[in-house]
């Protein structure tokens, strides 16, 4: 996509940037950016200030709040120290974010591309986060359930007590070992 305005890689702006246009920042802006069009913060770009636009794509570094009236997308090379706010927010795996994230409002324009991007990006990030947590929690109930079940199920099927005694022991040991781990 072509942006109407470009702040080139060697450019440094100390001040504010605003207006009714789309903007791509490849350089450095020490000030706030507020435009009505789309904004792209390129991978090597640095913004020390807030950024607001329609659809804001962050591939570089932003130290300030990022607000999108349509969407905010943080790419894997992106880094944001500040709050994210938009109806649609996408964060790629590898992105660095320090701040609050809030999806609110309704997108102002067509965002089918955004939702298509967001879905695959959000899922891989969410799944690994969920997996480690349930594992230790799930182990304890399984061990506890296994302990009472052998005495109940075993005696009706098999009369001899030997299976009953060993059954709780491995269960108890397994539980302790797993608990230690």
């Amino acid at each position, binding site marked *: 996509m072509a942006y109407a305005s*470009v*702040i*080139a890689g060697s*450019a*440094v702006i100390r001040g504010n940037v*605003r207006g009714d246009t789309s*903007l791509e920042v490849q*350089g450095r802006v020490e000030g706030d950016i507020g*435009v009505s069009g789309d904004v792209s913060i390129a991978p090597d770009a640095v913004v020390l200030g807030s950024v607001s636009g329609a659809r804001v794509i962050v591939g570089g570094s932003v130290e300030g709040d990022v607000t999108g009236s349509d969407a905010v997308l943080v790419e894997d090379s992106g880094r944001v120290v500040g709050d994210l706010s938009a109806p649609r927010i996408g964060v790629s795996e590898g992105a660095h974010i320090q701040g609050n994230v809030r999806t609110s409002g309704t997108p102002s324009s067509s965002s089918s591309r955004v939702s298509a991007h967001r879905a695959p990006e959000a899922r891989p990030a969410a799944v690994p986060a969920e997996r480690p947590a349930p594992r230790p929690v799930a182990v304890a109930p399984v061990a506890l359930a296994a302990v009472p079940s052998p005495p109940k199920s075993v005696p009706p099927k098999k009369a001899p007590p030997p299976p009953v005694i060993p059954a709780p022991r491995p269960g108890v040991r397994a539980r302790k070992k797993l608990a230690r781990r």
Partner: protein
Amino acid sequence: MAGSVVGAGLIIEGEFTSEEPVLVDGTVKGTLTTSEAVSIGADGVVEADVQALSVSIAGQLTGNVSANSRVDIQAGGRLVGDVKANRLTIADGASFRGNVDMDV
């Protein structure tokens, strides 16, 4: 075109420095410094002191201009401020008010 483009509708207020060409079709207020060319389009408005390799003015520039190479005021262009450059052209139909210093 490589370099920065201040598109129509964009307003930059502050200190703008670069080492690449700068095209202004929007508005720049403050200072504008680059080691390359500055081109102010017909709808561009610059209210800033400009330091550059060369400066081409087809829009409006209010401020002092210092160019290492040249300053060109195009027809329809308007400059209010002093010019310091080795070469200066003022096209027929351009507006200019200020001093000229060619002894760089």
